[in-house]
């Protein structure tokens, strides 16, 4: 049995192929595209599922 080498978003634990920021599979602090957009303010989490 081999150790798991899968990459997961450090924020939401979503499984990733590569980090959305640096595109490296071995990034020590990987982040998914959705959380990257939240972090940079390019997108904001929807406060209500029914909208404003």
């Amino acid at each position, binding site marked *: 049995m081999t150790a798991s080498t899968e990459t997961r978003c450090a924020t939401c634990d979503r499984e990733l192929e590569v980090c959305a920021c640096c*595109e490296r599979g071995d990034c020590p602090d990987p982040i998914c595209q959705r959380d990257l957009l939240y972090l940079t303010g*390019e997108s904001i989490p929807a406060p209500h599922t029914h909208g404003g």
Partner: protein
Amino acid sequence: MSPRAAWRLESMGFGEVYEYAAGLQDWITAGLPTEGTALAETRAGDVARADVSTCRLHEPLVEVRERTRKAGFDTCVVVNDERVVFGLIRSRDLDGEAATAGEAMRPGPSTFRPNVSAAALARLMADHDLPNVPITTNDGRLVGLLLREDADRVARERHDREH
């Protein structure tokens, strides 16, 4: 603004109120005028180097390398005739054995919009050990290359102002 906000402004007596269908982010990204303290901080598009070295897919790498280094950059952005970003050739790849820019580039790099805080990108670039990031419009056209040193300077200046 949203249709609701536009109607509310009209009810308050403002004339010529329009809905901007593409939304606030698109307005800011296009470099149109803004007001408010949240938008006052230095953005990536303000300090990105618009004169970054660019090349086309089929250019010989040897020519791209020479031109890029002569311009004082260690990264070249591969674009098409519309300045849409196809890839990045960073320092190590510039010195590689590939024949053309298209063979040497790393395709589909992560890009950021011009309205993103330069200080926020400084943190990201440090955390992910990136020497620079391309700044593009919503439709993928190159605005410039944000160098880590420029983003760090903005972050330091912001820190000094706040403390």
